């Protein structure tokens, strides 16, 4: 317990942790404030004003149309009608109609909690996962690099329990940050919806769906934290994890796409890591094989491959287990020089 307490203090005392946390909170705050500024609650007055603007737009378009018809008929009468500019019937019967200008188009932006908060949970989870990855990598990488790990092992000469205590502390910290920031994120947008947007149709089912999305986001952040921690521990340097992340993006996302596209591999996205992250968030992710279609013959229903969140969990779980197993093995076997 004393080791866990010391590690918890160390985690939150570290300047990098505080800096990254401040940065993420600042980004989240900027997003929330921008929604507050841009969202406006639409009452009867706003709707009436939008209707007026819609009517004005219709009138303007109608005027343009009538002017066009007049010019067309005049050109035809003079025998100088340019067929590229004027259609044969001068566009009669295709004039603008009032229903083509719905008032909704002219309403100011109104944040809809029910419709939009799901995407905002994804944004939150993405930032939290990024924070978790770099803090996780730095938490153990900087310890190795600065000699702190060696000092600690002189005090607690049990290598694997020390590593697991650090990992446990990190995961606990990420979970706590995720829960607290997630709650604040939800409350912030609830208030934005309540005072600057709308919070209608929030059924218990909708709340449950948001809670599941939030849990998925925090789960993803925990997995990222553990992978960053494991890679940095394996390389005994923060840069190992950061390098691996850059490598994953460059090779996994760009290189693999280009290479498999050139090799004409069908539905190559199943080999790209981000596909599994999308599937994790969206419960499923469908890949389409448009290569199988011959559009010249008409409409085509391409072959599909559905990646489910369970498959995604399996892939991420295997990756996580492999990285942590290697990190623990290296901790047990390698000399501390």
């Amino acid at each position: 317990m004393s080791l866990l307490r010391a590690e918890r203090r160390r985690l939150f005392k570290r300047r990098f942790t505080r800096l990254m946390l401040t940065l993420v909170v600042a980004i989240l705050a900027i997003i929330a404030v921008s929604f507050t500024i841009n969202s406006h609650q639409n009452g009867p007055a706003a709707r009436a004003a939008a209707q007026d603007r819609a009517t004005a737009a219709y009138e303007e378009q109608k005027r343009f149309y009538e002017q066009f018809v007049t010019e067309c008929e005049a050109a035809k009468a003079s025998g100088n009608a340019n067929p590229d500019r004027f259609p044969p019937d001068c566009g009669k019967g295709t004039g603008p109609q009032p229903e083509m200008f719905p008032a909704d188009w002219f309403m100011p932006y109104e944040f809809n909690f029910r419709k939009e908060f799901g995407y905002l949970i994804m944004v939150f989870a993405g930032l939290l996962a990024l924070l978790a990855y770099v803090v996780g990598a730095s938490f153990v990488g900087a310890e190795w690099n600065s000699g702190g790990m060696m000092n600690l092992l002189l005090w607690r000469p049990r290598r694997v329990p020390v590593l697991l205590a650090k990992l446990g502390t990190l995961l606990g910290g990420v979970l706590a940050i995720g829960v607290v920031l997630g709650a604040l994120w939800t409350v912030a947008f609830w208030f934005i919806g309540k005072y600057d947007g709308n919070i209608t149709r929030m059924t218990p089912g909708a709340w449950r769906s948001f809670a599941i999305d939030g849990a998925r986001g925090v789960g993803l952040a925990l997995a990222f934290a553990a992978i960053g921690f494991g890679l940095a521990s394996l390389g005994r340097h923060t840069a190992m994890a950061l390098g691996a992340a850059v490598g994953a993006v460059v090779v996994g996302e760009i290189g693999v796409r280009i290479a498999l596209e050139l090799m004409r591999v069908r539905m190559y996205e199943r080999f790209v890591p981000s596909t599994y992250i999308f599937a994790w968030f969206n419960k499923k992710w469908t890949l389409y094989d448009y290569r199988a279609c011959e559009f010249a013959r008409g409409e085509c229903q391409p072959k599909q491959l559905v990646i489910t969140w369970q498959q995604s969990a399996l892939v991420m779980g295997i990756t996580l287990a492999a990285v942590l197993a290697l990190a623990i093995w290296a901790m047990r076997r390698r000399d501390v020089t």
Partner: protein
Amino acid sequence: MAAVIEITGLRKTYRSLRRGPRRALDGFDMVVEAGQIHGFLGPNGSGKTTTLRTLLGLIRANDGRMTILGQAVPRALPAIAPQVGAIVESPQFFPHFSARDTLSLLADAGAVPRPRVDEVLELVGLRDRAKERVKTYSLGMKQRLAVASALLKQPKLLILDEPANGLDPGGIREMRDLMRSLVELGMTVVLSSHILGEVQQICDSVTIISLGRRVAAGPVTEVLAQHSSGSIRVRMESPGDLATAADLLQSNEVTVNVHPDHLLLGGVDRPAWVTRTLAEKGLYVSELVPVLADLEDVFLQLTGTAPVAGHHRQVDQSVHVEVSG
């Protein structure tokens, strides 16, 4: 006296795909008795740090047996760690933490009461700078902090690797006094150092390592005596008598080296014979002292690391010794 550290036949080979295997310890033995300050000496790359790291469980030995406080390590390390304080090589700390934070985190990890942090800060002279970040510290201050971290758990055995490195003369003397007082309190100190004068002054016993093997061990006085030449330095009341005295002694089958202001005699069993023989011929001695080797001489002799004019010795160029028994 009970042995606090016993090392027998310790072997360690570092393996590298690029550079191949490198034998760091080659059947090394060491014994440290309780209640002593024990000097651990060796040239760069001789295996000192590898020995200490292996003893402390940071490196796996390929072979050999080690005990600390009577318990086999590394197996018993978790049990005896609270009784062993150590700094290994140059002190390294997280640069953005203050000295107090650094020590209080270690105290938390080792379940040491927090008031002990202030005690050790006072002890090593960092009390007034305890709130400053370690990155602002000089090497000497970091060294003091390292010693403080090793003392934090009030160990029975204190292992210090180059503790005087970076300390100013006052700091070196303070460190020496501190070690003496710790030994008086019943602690055993193992001190790895390159400052041989300091080791000779402070240590009760020494172990000298070269190329991963022990080349000398025992009480400092014994080690010095074993490696002293047995020669005698003689100064005459009148420097003009040096040549006459040299001739007289050589005629009595004494080996004499004539120096501008003194004679160096070898093969003399009884120094009193020299004064009597010279006095009988009216030659009077103003100084007659046995020439004792100092630790530096012994170290350079045993490790084969004495500088040679025009030759640039490389790290790892030391002498091989045959280990008997």
